[in-house]
């Protein structure tokens, strides 16, 4: 062996040799994909389809409410919610569960200067690291025992994703306050009128809704928006605004619900003082 070795092989040569060895081993000792591996794949696929059908069935049968509509939240949530209404003031937005970890990142980077980190910064860095993983880890060993760094990194990533998803799922109040925390930067960046600033919203309640709901830029174009009065956080009793209904005859019912607390918390940008509210169940 030592006689054969003329010089130390380069890493490229070594990895090529290793792959050639792999190919030779598979050719010599491997088994045919069909039927051996394909059998496993087929069984697994059947399990997947069964699970999906079971989830659909559970969704249907537990959410079919007494009024025979899908609004009743069953084990997996209602089949559909009330129709979208840009005029509501109290709805707490929630993404699908697999975005909860992103969602919760925003609570960690809650200060206006750092929101950018939670929304784009950290996810982008993670994605780039994920894409570059094969180039960061260039050693040829594959056994986990000889890859301690990879093992620790994997455990940390899984743990943090799990914790973030869980925290996002159980967060009492959703993003509204975070979005508000972001507003001052938008205001300065986009040269918005000072009314858009949340600090001023208590004296000029019109700005609150604008800013909490849609992007702050929408403030300029939203003069036609109705139901604005409903955002006034001073009155406690829910009262449907008649102006809203006359101005937007196409929309019925539910809109113009007032949420004094959310409006107030919007003004002060406080997210901890308000009592926990079950988010996502907006079923009244």
């Amino acid at each position: 062996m030592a006689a054969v070795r003329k010089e130390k092989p380069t890493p490229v040569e070594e990895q090529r040799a290793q792959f050639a060895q792999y190919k030779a081993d598979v050719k010599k000792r491997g088994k045919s994909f069909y039927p051996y591996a394909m059998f496993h794949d087929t069984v697994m696929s059947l399990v997947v389809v069964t699970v999906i059908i079971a989830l659909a069935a559970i969704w249907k049968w537990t959410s079919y409410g007494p009024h025979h509509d899908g609004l009743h939240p069953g084990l997996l949530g209602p089949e559909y919610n009330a129709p979208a209404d840009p005029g509501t003031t109290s709805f707490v937005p929630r993404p699908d569960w697999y975005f909860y970890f992103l969602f919760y990142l925003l609570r960690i980077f809650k200060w206006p200067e750092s929101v950018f980190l939670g929304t784009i910064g950290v996810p982008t860095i993670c994605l780039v690291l994920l894409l570059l993983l094969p180039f960061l880890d260039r050693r040829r060993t594959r056994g986990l025992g000889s890859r301690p760094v990879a093992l620790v990194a994997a455990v940390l990533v899984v743990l943090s994703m799990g914790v973030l998803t869980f925290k996002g799922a159980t967060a009492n109040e959703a993003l509204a306050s975070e979005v508000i925390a972001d507003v001052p930067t938008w205001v300065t960046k986009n040269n918005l009128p000072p009314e858009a600033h949340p600090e001023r919203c208590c004296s000029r309640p019109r700005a609150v809704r604008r800013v909490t709901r849609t992007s702050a830029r929408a403030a300029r174009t939203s003069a036609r928006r109705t139901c604005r009065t409903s955002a006034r956080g001073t009155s406690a009793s829910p009262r449907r605004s008649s102006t809203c209904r006359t101005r937007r005859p196409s929309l019925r019912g539910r809109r113009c619900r007032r949420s004094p607390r959310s409006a107030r918390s919007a003004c002060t940008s406080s997210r901890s003082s308000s009592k926990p509210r079950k988010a996502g169940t907006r079923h009244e």
Partner: protein
Amino acid sequence: MTTYKRKPTKGELRSQRLEEVVMYPIDWLEERSGLIGGLRYFLFRKVPGDVNWMQTLGSAALTAFLVQAITGVILAMYYTPSAATDPHTGQPVAWLSIVNITDHLTMGWLVRGMHRWGASVFIILMFLHMARVFLFGAYKYPRELNWIVGVLILVMGMMEGFTGYLLPWDQTSYWATVVGINLNGTAPILGPWLAQFLRSGQEISGETLTRFYSLHMLVIPGGIIALITLHLYLVIRLGVTSPPWSKEAAGMEPSEDGHAPLRPGLTQPVPRGISPQGEPGGSE
């Protein structure tokens, strides 16, 4: 073709003719496209003898994607991506079509439920598949490119989740999308432009809905299908890895210094300086 010493019986002649009839179109296709040979290669290629159940996660994710594709096509036949108000009920047309699919269409609840929960299953399976690849160190040479393709599929899958979430046009989907688009808008330079593009204007409107619908069922799935094709091609070309802890792993596992196999009893190391393409130097 069997040659008979004696005169073939009627039965033999019939089966001979039957074989010709069956084989003719197959041979025709093979001669003109080579597809049959490709299929044969796909089915009867060798995989390592020690592949296990964890390695079915990729095909399970593929199955979930196919479920999404089929149920999505059916849903597209009945869904109307319009935020216009229905004159009879006063509700948005898109929301009404979802209610119709869920409550009135025969088996509509099943198709929609499978699509909705299949999305979650698809995402979960992609993450599990990625974890398996990481665990096995299967992203290493020469499979780096396939890892990158897989990450891109995961990202596009989550984009499918984001765009699909708006389509029911109910409160949950509307406000989650408002927040999601605003988050995109916080990115530097491209952020506002991206938010504007996704919204198709200053605010979320019916145009946003049709835009998301187009992205959700044409643009992103097209990209995913292309990437999955590339992914599978690379899997077939490069082969499936053995579990790194396997006693009969195909390919040698290098030791820490990377010059000798970790388990010399299995396969002799390829002599350095000699072409690695030769026969493996003894085994078992």
